[in-house]
């Protein structure tokens, strides 16, 4: 059994958690112990806090969810500054953290009554239609509506961060430091291009840092190596180049006509204006969720959130979980949870067969976790956080069969039903996009070298179609080399490697698991300009 202390894993068969100095933060005035290097959200979670905020209108509870600064459920007031994403801010001794929605606070919110009555009194959109006939009635209702609006309290203090500004010129800009981005940066840099790589996280590696399992794929692409190790290898290689500038905690917010705006956090909060000749977007993907009753209850997580909590911060997500989705992510997560001493009640899969690789499924079955195929989750149980779940069998038309409901006791539900490309930057930059179900959603049209319809703008990794890290690394290699060649680097040698890389990726995708991807890519492949 894995030892836990203060909600934190103490021993782990694969991972080692180096915790910083113990500090005290104050949550709604109450002292909470935390360790340096932990985010506020993670520390609160370890201390048993489950309700982080309340929803805007119905005052439904919101809790820890994405763990990567995307979902906004964890926004709180930190040292007088409203709307701080607590999953992205590290604890500091004496930090004052307050929930900002709910009366008097998020956990015990008297306004949660609105959840039961709002729809009856104010059905959706009715605030435009009620009390409209007289000026005074309208003024009254506008004033009342305004009282309930807004998320954070007005800022009490002036933000103390120092503001800075930097203009950067580079040859290749890579946005995203996951496997695809790092590989692109390495391959552009190795032929001599000047490269800048950004990542919004304080570390490189993207989602690899959560992957404690060994990889498949070709030996050349590091099969048999654990994801976390691959991240280290790539980072080591990347950092060995003198012509690569790495900026962490740096978020690119827009691509404006070949110029990129980014925000770099640090002692000085910097606005970066980056002029780049080639831009490679490797922003990865988001987790999908499912529609079921109470799917917004704290305790319903994406697989990534749970992995971050457990594998990055060493915090136990709960005692007993239900996993929805039997793809590789669901199966691997189940195994990781059990490694961390968390019980898994069951895996639920809507398809008639298990989605993931056989080896993963076999491993999970050996551990005695039941997999319910042709089942779906109907509802999460609980008032403030998950206390259980109800699943049911599906008929051929995907409708739940009455009478087949099963109830599980669990304190969290993990939805692992796939990913959607994080395509916003590409879309904003003006790339021609297409919705391709085989690739997971809206993806850019691209050449076989992964150049989009915006000249000089490339993509690598999940952002242009959901695959695995191995494919992301190979795509990164292709567009990194192509970008270098178009800048005049590498010569014949690079051109030869480029064609090899394209061939290798084609071969990699030719396997049985690549079929869907191949179909998808055919739909968005365009002819490019020859280098």
């Amino acid at each position, binding site marked *: 059994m894995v030892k836990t202390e203060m909600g934190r894993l103490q021993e782990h068969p694969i991972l080692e958690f180096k915790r910083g100095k113990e500090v005290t933060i104050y949550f709604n005035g109450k002292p909470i112990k935390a360790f340096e290097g932990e985010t506020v959200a993670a520390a609160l979670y370890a201390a048993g806090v489950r309700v982080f905020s309340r929803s*805007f209108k119905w005052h439904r509870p919101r809790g820890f969810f994405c763990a990567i600064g995307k979902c906004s459920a964890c926004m709180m007031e930190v040292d007088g500054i409203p709307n701080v994403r607590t999953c992205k801010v590290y604890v500091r001794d004496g930090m004052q953290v307050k929930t900002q929605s709910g009366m008097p606070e998020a956990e015990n919110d008297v306004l949660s009554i609105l959840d039961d009555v709002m729809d009856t009194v104010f059905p959706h959109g009715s605030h435009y*239609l009620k009390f409209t*006939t007289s000026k005074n009635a309208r*003024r009254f*209702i506008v004033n009342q509506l305004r009282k309930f609006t*807004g998320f*954070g309290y007005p*800022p009490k203090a002036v933000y103390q961060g120092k503001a800075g500004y930097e203009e950067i010129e580079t040859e290749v800009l890579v946005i995203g430091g996951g496997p695809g981005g790092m590989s692109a940066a390495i391959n552009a840099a190795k032929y001599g291009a000047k490269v800048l790589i950004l990542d919004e996280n304080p570390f490189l590696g993207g989602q690899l840092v959560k992957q404690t399992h060994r990889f498949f794929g070709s030996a050349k692409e590091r099969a048999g190596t654990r994801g976390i190790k691959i991240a280290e290898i790539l980072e080591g290689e990347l950092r060995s180049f003198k012509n690569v500038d790495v900026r962490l905690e740096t978020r690119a917010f*827009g691509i404006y006509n070949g110029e990129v705006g980014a925000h770099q956090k640090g002692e000085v909060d910097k606005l970066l204006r980056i002029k780049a000749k080639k831009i490679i977007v490797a922003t990865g993907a988001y987790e999908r969720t499912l529609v079921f009753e109470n799917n917004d209850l704290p305790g319903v997580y994406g697989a990534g959130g749970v992995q971050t909590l457990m594998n990055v911060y060493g915090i136990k997500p709960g005692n007993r979980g239900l996993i929805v989705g039997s793809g590789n992510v669901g199966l691997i997560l189940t195994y990781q949870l059990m490694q961390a001493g968390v019980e898994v009640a069951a895996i639920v899969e809507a398809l008639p067969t298990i989605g993931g690789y056989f080896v993963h499924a076999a491993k999970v079955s050996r551990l005695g976790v039941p997999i319910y195929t042709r089942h779906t989750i109907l509802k999460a149980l609980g008032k403030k956080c998950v206390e259980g779940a109800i699943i049911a069998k599906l008929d051929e038309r995907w409708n739940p069969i009455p009478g087949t409901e099963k109830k599980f006791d669990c304190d969290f539900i993990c939805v692992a039903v796939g990913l959607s490309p994080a395509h916003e930057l590409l879309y904003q930059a003006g790339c021609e996009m297409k919705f391709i179900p085989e690739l997971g959603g809206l993806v850019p049209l691209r050449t076989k070298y992964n150049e989009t319809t915006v000249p000089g703008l490339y993509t690598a990794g999940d952002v242009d179609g959901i695959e695995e890290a191995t494919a992301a690394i190979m795509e990164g290699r292709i567009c990194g080399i192509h970008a270098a060649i178009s800048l005049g680097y590498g010569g014949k040698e690079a051109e030869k490697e480029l064609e090899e890389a394209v061939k290798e990726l084609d071969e990699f995708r030719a396997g049985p698991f690549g079929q869907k991807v191949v179909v998808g890519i055919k739909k968005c492949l365009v002819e490019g300009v020859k280098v």
Partner: protein
Amino acid sequence: MSELKVAVIGGGIAGLSAAYFLAKSGAEVEVFEQRYLLYGASGRNSGGLTVQFNDEELIKLALRSLDLYDELQSEVKFNFLLRKDGYLKIANKNDEAKLESEASLLKKFGVKIEILNQNEVKELVPDINTKAFDLAYYFSKGGTVFPWPVIWGLARGCKALGVKVYDYTPATVVVENGSVKGVQTLDGLHKADFVINAAGAWSNEVSKSAGVELDNKIFKENICVTESLRPYLDPYIFDVSNNAYLSQSMRGEIVGGVVGREIDQIDKKGELDPLIRYAKFATNLIPKLKGLSVLRQWVGVYDLGKNGKPVIGFTKVKGFVQLNGFGRHGMSLGLAAGEKVAEMVLKK
């Protein structure tokens, strides 16, 4: 005599207002919107409402519009989420003459513009940095409106009166022997006795299709919103000297931007420079906004008559009427201008 038939090109505030008043008087009206309602400047602006203009004609339209906001909400039974919490124009000393002449002109119309000292401004906006400006001219009856329900409400009112509002229907003007015959869409000719050109930034092209020269200037403006806050900022603030503005929406977001720049061709791609200029302006004016994140940025395009004023009235082509060129002030002027054009058409 058969019923008066009117085609309106453009489903923004001015076009819908004209359509509404015409239909109210019994005309048969069709509105042609090239994309969808809210696609143009009426769906992309920050909803500032004021009468602080340097021109009598504009002041008249703006004053009438403020009344119409009240009347129309009752008539169409739709709440536009209008907040008359004041419109504050701030400036540095160099722009004193401009603000003074606005204020004295408004005096003639019986409108009081309060000249606030810095303490009085602090009372209105407690966190404002009073070093950021020298002068503050306050119109207490101005305010902020959420543009979307204005358009939804007008469209609803129009439809209730039998107006047909077509979206995704680009239209050109058909002229025969010097007078309009109707408008041409992909599905054919829609006959009309009058065609009203309320196409905003696209008005020049519509006018060209009628063979009428219109040389409105086209502008492109970037706006952004932050994450939402509880009620914080009551008035709409416009900085005359910095050409930038901000206010708080009903959803609690801080909405603002910098005044647009003239462009040759319509494009709606977001730009970095205005975003940076706005961020500097906003955090200098209200330093406590510094830690707030910007959620979204977008661009709107609008047209301004070449002499700086709206273009309202008949043209050399019989039955072809201009209702465009409002610049940044469509929300403040559009309702009354639509009503005015409706009256002109009905009188003909």
